[in-house]
């Protein structure tokens, strides 16, 4: 039985009040859920944990409104989080409405909308809030009827007397529950008692989306608001000197044009490091602004090296030879073991820089006055945005508000706050509210890219085909590609992992499943090759390694739970009928662990007119408890398509510091006809608190794809995007 505390040091995480219009309002701290574990006594609880930022209203009509402060990037948290509250509250989902807390109330503040983290962080808090409400409503009913709470049962928002006829609904008792004292400790449901969590509920915003309601930052309007565009330097390593300001200002519909500077003191990791000085143009028609942008004639000065793709490759190669090793791990004596090995397998893998390309380009609204700033837009980082805007404008933090809109995709991109700062700088300059809009070209050439990586793997087998030595040396611009303590660390006696970062002036950032998306592809294709060299089935080969990690692990620690890792492989093996062969169908398998979740995938490929076509993908997922099943499947399917698409088709190349791909004419994103025909998702059932869903579906898809392509073509694909490197001859042969 799990108990959680509703208070700590006599400070409560819950605040109860009468709801306007009748009923009960439960305010709670969205990210706080303290178990009653005695260890917690020793933990210093940060002040923010007491901040009330989530609300549940139980109206006297029985309608339950959950105000979700969490912005939506597409992970469906606005549906799944309220489901957790409703489960513990024991209310009929039909009577639940989820509302976006209205703008400008401060509801949104201090929310971290960090990708796969969202559910993980708020799981206990949401359960506590729901369970507290349920308990207080029950107590109110017991008091009303003058019986003991143990004589009551509740289901779907209706309280019944166990041995009697009386019933009362939440709506009827809600106003009285306001006077009940908040219990200090609350018992949560047993996992086996869940009847809402684990089912499939439709996206609460589905109707609004399919009818085209304005939900996104780009749709935000305010009376008197002007529009603005920016122009950053055409190349990394360049800076603006001046431009034909007067000419631009004279164009139709243009109100102002100037250079902004968004440099701030002590920039944080998610502040811009590259393009800090930008040309800004203000007007009231997007189209006229876009035309003015094209008419810019600027002098750019070169302030650092103008890099190109060949240089990037060379930098990575040089780093292999002589770079400084960062994170690393060594078990046993790899050199000696390689010397003694009877078979050596070696391969190098690489992947290019990639933009995020959220479908909704960056944009932000800002209204800056002498001593205040109001910002609204698609960001996952309201607090860091406030901080940086405060530094930029020299306005105290408490006079700055940042509110979040729905986001047309994130994938890590909206963890970076520069576009909000740019909007703020423009608003300050013109002294009026403004919405900044990036064109696709701005968005794709701005930077904040997925780093470029290259890793070299080496494996040694003894005469009995046992894997006795393994090494990986991985470089990347600007960060090394290796996670030293991930699989297969812990399974091989002689093991070496080394990560080497290389400098570049191309700016980079977190991109869906950072580093894992590359590492999974490389490592999992390499292990496929090693299994083949050892004459073993690729799944059995991995399972043997996991057995080693379970029974007799090498080294002090590794980052994964081998049982769960093996579990998803076994599940995908069973579901895909692994081992069965079908004429003309080529299969590949991969498994990966990241963001606390385990995913194994099998990809089936056929050749149509010599071109690979993905027929089906099977996914086995261990992400702990699944909250909203259908939405969880959607996330995994999306991850698979994203992984396959980028590995197969996408790349950004550079020439003289400028990107060659600026829009979807030259930059390829996967399209309908290239997507798998079917993706089936299976979840491992367990009682573990929910873990990441947004990211972990992606990485194994890259490895499984490469392995299936090998079966189909006989070619080991090591360089992304694969489509550029598949030899046509092989396919047609």
């Amino acid at each position, binding site marked *: 039985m799990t108990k959680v505390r509703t208070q700590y040091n006599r400070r409560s995480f819950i605040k109860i009040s009468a709801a306007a219009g009748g009923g009960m309002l439960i305010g709670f701290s969205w990210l706080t859920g303290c178990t009653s574990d005695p260890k917690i006594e020793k933990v210093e609880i940060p002040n923010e944990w007491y901040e009330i930022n989530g609300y549940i209203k139980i109206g006297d009509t029985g309608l339950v409104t959950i105000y979700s402060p969490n912005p939506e990037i597409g992970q469906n948290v606005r549906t799944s989080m309220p489901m957790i509250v409703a489960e513990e509250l024991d209310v009929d989902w039909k009577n639940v409405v989820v509302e976006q807390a209205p703008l400008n109330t401060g509801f949104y503040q201090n929310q971290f909308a960090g990708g796969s983290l969202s559910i993980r962080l708020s799981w206990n808090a949401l359960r506590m809030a729901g369970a507290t409400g349920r308990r207080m409503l029950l107590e109110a009913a017991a008091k009303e009827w003058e019986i003991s709470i143990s004589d009551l049962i509740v289901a779907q928002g209706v309280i019944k007397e166990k041995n009697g006829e009386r019933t009362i609904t939440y709506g009827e008792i809600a106003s009285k529950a306001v006077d009940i004292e908040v219990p200090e400790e609350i018992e949560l449901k047993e996992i086996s008692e869940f009847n809402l969590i684990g089912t499939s509920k439709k996206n609460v915003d589905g109707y609004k989306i399919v009818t085209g309601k304005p939900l996104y930052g780009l749709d935000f309007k305010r009376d008197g608001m002007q529009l603005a565009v920016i122009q950053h330097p055409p190349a990394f390593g360049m800076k603006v000197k001046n431009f034909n300001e007067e000419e631009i200002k004279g164009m139709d519909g243009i109100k102002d044009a100037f250079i902004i500077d968004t440099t701030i003191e002590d920039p944080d990791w998610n502040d811009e490091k590259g393009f800090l000085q930008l040309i800004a143009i203000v007007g009231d028609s997007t189209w006229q602004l876009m035309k003015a942008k094209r008419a810019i004639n600027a002098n750019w000065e070169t302030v650092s090296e103008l890099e190109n793709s060949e240089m990037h490759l060379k930098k990575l190669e040089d780093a292999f030879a002589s770079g400084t090793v960062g994170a690393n791990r060594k078990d046993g004596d790899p050199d000696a073991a390689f010397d003694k090995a009877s078979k050596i397998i070696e391969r190098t893998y690489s992947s290019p820089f990639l933009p995020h390309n959220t479908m909704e380009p960056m944009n932000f609204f800002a209204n800056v006055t002498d001593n205040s700033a109001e910002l609204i837009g698609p960001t996952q980082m309201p607090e860091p945005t406030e901080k940086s805007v405060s530094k930029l404008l020299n306005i105290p933090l408490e006079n700055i508000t940042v509110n979040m809109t729905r986001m047309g995709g994130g994938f890590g991109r909206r963890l970076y706050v520069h576009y909000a700062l740019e909007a703020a700088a423009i608003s300050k300059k013109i002294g009026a509210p403004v919405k900044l809009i990036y064109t696709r070209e701005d968005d794709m050439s701005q930077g904040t890219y997925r780093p470029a990586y290259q890793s070299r793997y080496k494996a040694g087998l003894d005469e009995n085909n046992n894997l006795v030595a393994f090494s990986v040396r991985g470089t990347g611009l600007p960060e090394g590609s290796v996670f030293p303590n991930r699989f297969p660390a812990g399974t091989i006696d002689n093991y070496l992992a080394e990560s080497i970062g290389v400098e570049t002036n191309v700016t980079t950032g977190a991109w869906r499943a950072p580093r894992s998306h590359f590492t999974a592809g490389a490592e999992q294709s390499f292990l496929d090759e090693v299994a083949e060299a050892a004459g073993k089935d690729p799944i059995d080969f991995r399972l043997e390694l996991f057995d080693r990690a379970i029974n007799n692990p090498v080294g002090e620690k590794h980052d994964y739970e081998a049982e769960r890792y093996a579990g998803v492989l076994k599940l995908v093996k069973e579901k895909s009928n692994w081992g069965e062969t079908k004429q003309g169908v080529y299969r590949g398998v991969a498994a990966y662990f990241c963001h606390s979740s385990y995913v194994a995938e099998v990809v089936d490929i056929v050749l149509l007119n010599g071109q690979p076509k993905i027929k089906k993908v099977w996914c086995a997922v261990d992400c702990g408890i699944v909250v909203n099943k259908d939405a969880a499947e959607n996330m995994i399917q999306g991850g698979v398509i994203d992984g396959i698409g980028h590995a197969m088709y996408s790349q950004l190349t550079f020439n003289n510091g400028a990107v060659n791909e600026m829009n979807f004419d030259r930059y390829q994103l996967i399209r309908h006809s290239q997507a798998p025909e*079917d993706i089936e998702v299976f979840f491992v059932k367990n009682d573990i608190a929910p873990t990441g869903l947004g990211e972990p579906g992606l990485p194994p898809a890259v490895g499984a794809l490469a392995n299936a392509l090998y079966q189909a073509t006989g070619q080991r694909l090591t360089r992304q995007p694969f489509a550029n490197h598949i030899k046509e001859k092989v396919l047609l042969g």
Partner: protein
Amino acid sequence: MPTYTLKINGKSHTVEADSDTPLLWILRDHIELLGTKYGCGIGQCGACTVHVNGNASRSCSLLVSQLQGMEITTIEGLSEEGDHPVQKAWIEHDVPQCGYCQSGQIMSAAVLLKNNPNPSDKDIDAAMNGNICRCGTYVRIKQAIKTASKL
């Protein structure tokens, strides 16, 4: 600035705009129909898809000056109550993730089904290939189109 009269969702709208303004920005900036989205501006992503005389068209690549007298339908005008078979099927399959591309996807799918009530997978790929979804909802879109074909 010249003025143009456009027929959008059955209503007539007069706007003042440069003659080379794409329909997309007329919809978004001038008429405040914000369901039609900007994704690339060069006819490559499909986010801005609307119907012009019953054809799926990229509104970022149509100039306001070419559209007088034509019947334009946006996502807001696809159905009165949001109950076009494609919209219903989209909800049934819970297609959207971020949702940004979906009004364009729905507009393309609606035209496909009007011209071809029982499309094969190949037909769907051909009709929908111009609509990118960065979130990767392609498998569900295909299923939803098949469901819509039966509604």
